[in-house]
């Protein structure tokens, strides 16, 4: 009797736990829960993440030109590049952008690449423009003496002197800028932009200032001069101050642009994929529909063919779906259209495990065991089949994950998680429920309920 109570209790616990998890899934999804706005932050922050092909958005692949970078420094440059781009993208207000470095090599290919995913963004062109822009900071020194100035006379009689050939470029550019800070001069309370160069920059700057004492060094931003201070002495600490005629707002903007803008390496756009939001939305609906229909069809088949154990399998499958959905929210897994397909396939695989167990149980029943024993043996014997047949699927999922683009990784991940959880749910959850029923009497009705298909539960002699 005690054993019976224990088993029933276990089933109830599983059901309650599953219900709890199901409630979590329901409450944390905006589209399901009408009171979403009123929920605690924990629920609100755990919505399903949608991949680009479901939310709409862009997938951009940039090639980084590291030809000017020493091999040992490539990784640092790429990471710096990623940080800069990430900052820019964040400034743009995109929710959950993804910026990743893809290293050159066997898997990545020849070039160092940067991959940018911008979900839900409507104006892609603006985004790409903003990402690709390189505020170019240059330091120029005076042209050698005797270079004639260009002067033009405008219509209104004004004389415009073109200074652009008065300055010659040096090697010192924004590449070597470590950071820019906004400061207010202690004497004049005017805003100044303080530049700090990195090691190489410091050396270059020292050289420039040493050779040009008494002359002007022009600081050019995006091709036009923003400041032309006169060098007073050699500057060895790599710090430069740009001052004069900035408003605080201008100074702040400049600091922002310099900091977010000093792209360590130039980038070119290799490929761009944009998916309209409406296409994404319809894909989500279709995916959910297919999943629901698939579930119903499987449930029908299970109950009609396997009867009572089939009903248990349907409950077990529901628990499986709830657990997997909760995992997708918590890990989190970014769902793509293929990812939904992977999840639906894993539903089929989850049922497979149950089928294997039931067929085994049937055999043991036919062999003359009691229901109790048949169930126990069925589980034990079926496990090796389940384990082996799911391993090959897992191998495929792992390799796909390794090799795929972000859209494919979604498929590999949902498939892999689904397979793993299915192994768990078949062995533990189905077992708990079946065990609960195994104390049933050995009546003909019971045996009928436990057998399947067209058989009538009679023991073969």
């Amino acid at each position, binding site marked *: 009797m005690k054993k019976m109570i224990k088993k029933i209790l276990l089933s109830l616990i599983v059901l309650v736990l599953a219900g709890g998890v199901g409630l979590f899934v329901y409450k944390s999804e905006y589209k399901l829960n009408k009171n979403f706005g009123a929920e605690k932050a924990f629920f609100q922050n755990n919505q399903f993440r949608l991949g680009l092909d479901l939310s709409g958005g862009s997938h951009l*692949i940039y090639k980084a030109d590291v030809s000017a970078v020493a091999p040992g420094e490539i990784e640092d440059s790429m990471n710096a590049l990623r940080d800069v781009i990430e900052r820019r993208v964040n400034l743009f207000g995109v929710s959950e952008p993804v910026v990743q470095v893809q290293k050159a090599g066997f*898997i990545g*290919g020849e*070039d160092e690449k940067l991959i940018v995913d911008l979900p839900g963004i409507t104006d892609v062109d603006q985004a*790409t*423009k903003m990402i690709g822009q390189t505020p170019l900071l240059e330091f120029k020194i005076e042209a050698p003496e005797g270079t004639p100035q260009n002067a033009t006379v405008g219509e209104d009689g004004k004389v415009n002197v073109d200074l652009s050939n008065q300055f010659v470029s040096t090697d010192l550019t924004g590449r070597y800028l470590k950071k820019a800070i906004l400061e207010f001069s202690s004497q004049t309370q005017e805003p100044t932009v303080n530049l700090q160069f990195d090691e190489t920059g410091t050396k270059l700057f020292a050289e420039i200032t040493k050779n040009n004492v008494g002359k002007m060094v022009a600081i050019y931003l995006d091709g036009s001069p923003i400041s032309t201070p006169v060098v007073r002495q050699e500057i060895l600490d790599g710090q430069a101050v740009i001052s004069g005629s900035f408003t605080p707002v201008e100074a702040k903007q400049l600091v922002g642009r310099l900091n977010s803008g000093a792209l360590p390496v130039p980038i070119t*756009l*290799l*490929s*761009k*994929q*944009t*998916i*309209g939001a*409406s*296409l994404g939305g*319809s*894909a989500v609906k*279709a*995916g959910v*529909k*297919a999943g629901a229909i*698939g579930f119903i*069809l*499987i449930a029908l*088949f299970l109950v009609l063919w396997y009867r009572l154990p089939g009903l248990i399998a349907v409950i077990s499958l529901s628990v499986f779906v709830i657990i997997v959905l909760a995992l997708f929210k918590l890990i989190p897994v970014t769902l793509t*259209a*293929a990812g*939904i*397909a992977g999840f*639906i*396939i894993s*539903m*089929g*695989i989850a*049922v*497979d495990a149950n*089928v*294997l167990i039931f*067929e085994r149980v049937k055999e043991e029943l036919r062999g003359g065991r009691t229901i109790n024993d048949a169930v126990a043996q069925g589980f034990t014997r079926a496990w*090796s*089949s389940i384990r*082996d*047949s*799911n*391993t*090959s*699927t*897992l*191998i*495929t*999922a792992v*390799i*796909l994950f*390794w*090799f*795929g*683009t972000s859209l*494919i990784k979604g498929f590999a991940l949902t*498939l892999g998680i689904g397979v793993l959880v299915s192994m768990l749910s078949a062995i533990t959850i189905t077992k708990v429920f079946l065990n609960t029923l195994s104390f049933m009497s050995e009546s003909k009705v019971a045996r009928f309920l436990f057998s399947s298909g067209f058989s009538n539960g009679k023991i073969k002699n």
Partner: protein
Amino acid sequence: MFIIKNKKIFFIISTVLVVASIISISFFGLKAGIDFKGGALTEVVYDQTRPDQGELQKSLENLGFGSVLLQPTGELGYIVKSRDLTDEEHNLLLETLSNNNVNALQEFNFNSIGPSVGQELTRKAIVAIILVSIAIILFIAYAFRKVSKPVSSWRYGFIAIVTLLHDVLIPVGIFAALSHYFGAEVDTLFVVAILTILGLSVSDTIVVFDRIRENLSKEVKVDSSNFSSIVGNSLTQSFARSINTSLTLIVVLIALVFFGPVSIKYFALMLTAGMFFGTYSSIFLSSTLLVWIEEMQSKKTI
């Protein structure tokens, strides 16, 4: 057992299907999509009126993007295929398509993939297929390492490879026909489908081999006299569960084909075909091959 006794018939059926598929692939060819070739694909849907195709084609060609393919889709849409486009070119294209906003449109989809990315994807795809195949073969050899009599475990692996090829070639052959008649293109999802078929169909074959292994281990003496009957019995015993496990997957995949997102329709179709032929090969091909190999082997030793 029926299946084993008539193994020749099933060999013939399989061979015919595989040969037909190979012919289909060589004859129809597989169209590489822009994922692998590089290029640009723009899909737009007009709000109210869709401009005439002939005229639009001319104005597109005048843009200087090289050859441009214009395909109508649905009632109000066009798909434009061209070489990969820069942002400015893309904007120019959109302007031309919308007649400078006279015919308002929405852009559903835009993919521009540079050739180097395409090449890289091709390389990755090939490597992934090779890796998965090797991994699966090793796995089978390992899983069946203890079943060395009368057929060595490597033979099991070999049979699994043959059935794998069969399971992959036939759906690809079908796809080639679809490619020819409906313009379906090979993209990354196609490769994913192939890899998934590899994984799923093997798991199916293992269900059958598993039962054979179990029955073989029960027998005291296994030789050519009872090998085929043991295999036959195993097949009978595992028939129901093999069909049912595959049925559940196929049912779910068919739901995907008919109700799932448009972007993965061909993907789901490929998987369905792969699953179907995978089941066929697991039941009618893998065990029959096993018996046949054993017969060949025993003839040699005699």
